[in-house]
């Protein structure tokens, strides 16, 4: 006999009007939501996006089908909220363009050079790499950014990503390939500019 999911009991209670019980779910899955959000969103906005995620989950709690674990459902909402954040803020958030600041990019050779396998970890500051990461992703369209993050950085399946973006499989596959090519072109140009 299948063991009843304890989350379902809490969800029923919340739907019956016990709002406080939702905090039990918040506390249980907060780490997961913050983990997914912090990877994608600038530090200053992580709390807001995480809060927005829980609000969305709360609003659509009655649509939770209970066929999948609550955590998976919540993860999809988190990823969608992050995608929406970039769709909304793509034009507003500005990051320093490393190409404009070539003096500070000597470490690029260290990172990409053949001789330095793991040496960059010792010599290059994480902040610099993070800055380059943000700059590169910023160059992509919001949806391309989400695709690169989910498929190539996190290794999620196409099926999962298609569900998050609410796209068909073939569209997701084609767009993912294009997004990766675009990112590679950006990195190629950057490396060419440095050499």
């Amino acid at each position, binding site marked *: 006999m299948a063991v009843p999911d304890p989350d379902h009991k809490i969800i029923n209670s919340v*739907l019956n009007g016990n709002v406080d019980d939702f905090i039990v779910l918040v506390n249980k899955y907060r780490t997961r939501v913050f983990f997914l959000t912090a990877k994608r969103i600038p530090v200053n906005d992580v709390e807001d996006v995480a809060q927005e995620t829980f*609000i969305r989950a709360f609003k659509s*709690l*009655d649509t939770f089908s209970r066929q999948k674990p609550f955590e998976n459902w919540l993860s999809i909402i988190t990823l969608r909220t992050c995608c929406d954040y970039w769709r909304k803020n793509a034009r507003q958030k500005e990051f320093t363009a490393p190409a404009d600041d070539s003096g500070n990019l000597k470490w690029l050779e260290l*990172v990409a050079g053949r001789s330095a396998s793991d040496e960059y970890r010792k010599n290059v500051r994480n902040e610099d*790499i993070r800055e380059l990461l943000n700059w590169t992703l910023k160059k992509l369209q919001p949806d391309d950014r989400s695709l690169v993050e989910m498929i190539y950085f996190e290794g999620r399946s196409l099926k999962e990503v298609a569900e998050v973006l609410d796209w068909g499989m073939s569209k997701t596959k084609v767009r993912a390939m294009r997004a990766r090519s675009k990112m590679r072109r950006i990195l190629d140009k950057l490396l060419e500019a440095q050499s």
Partner: protein
Amino acid sequence: MKKSPKTEKLENVLRDSFNAVPEIAVSRNWQQELLERLYQLKPFQIQAKFERNVWRFSWISFTVSAAAAIILALYIYTQAGNNTDADPDGNIYTSLAMLD
């Protein structure tokens, strides 16, 4: 697309950086703010709104069906009236004679 080893290496470094999550210190008010926002929403209110919409839809359907039934009844009634007045044989000459 042709892969450049340098680009690939850089891509791997960026992937590592993406997956190395910075530590986030959640502010003390975060949960309280969330709770306050949740209280303003209340999913059971949303459910109630859904139920209200269902009732509204039911009433509209009922009204439309009732109106259709009345129109149909009137139509049948008028047709029945016409049939008693009209020439039962459908003879055009008889009908014309009646007009005279």
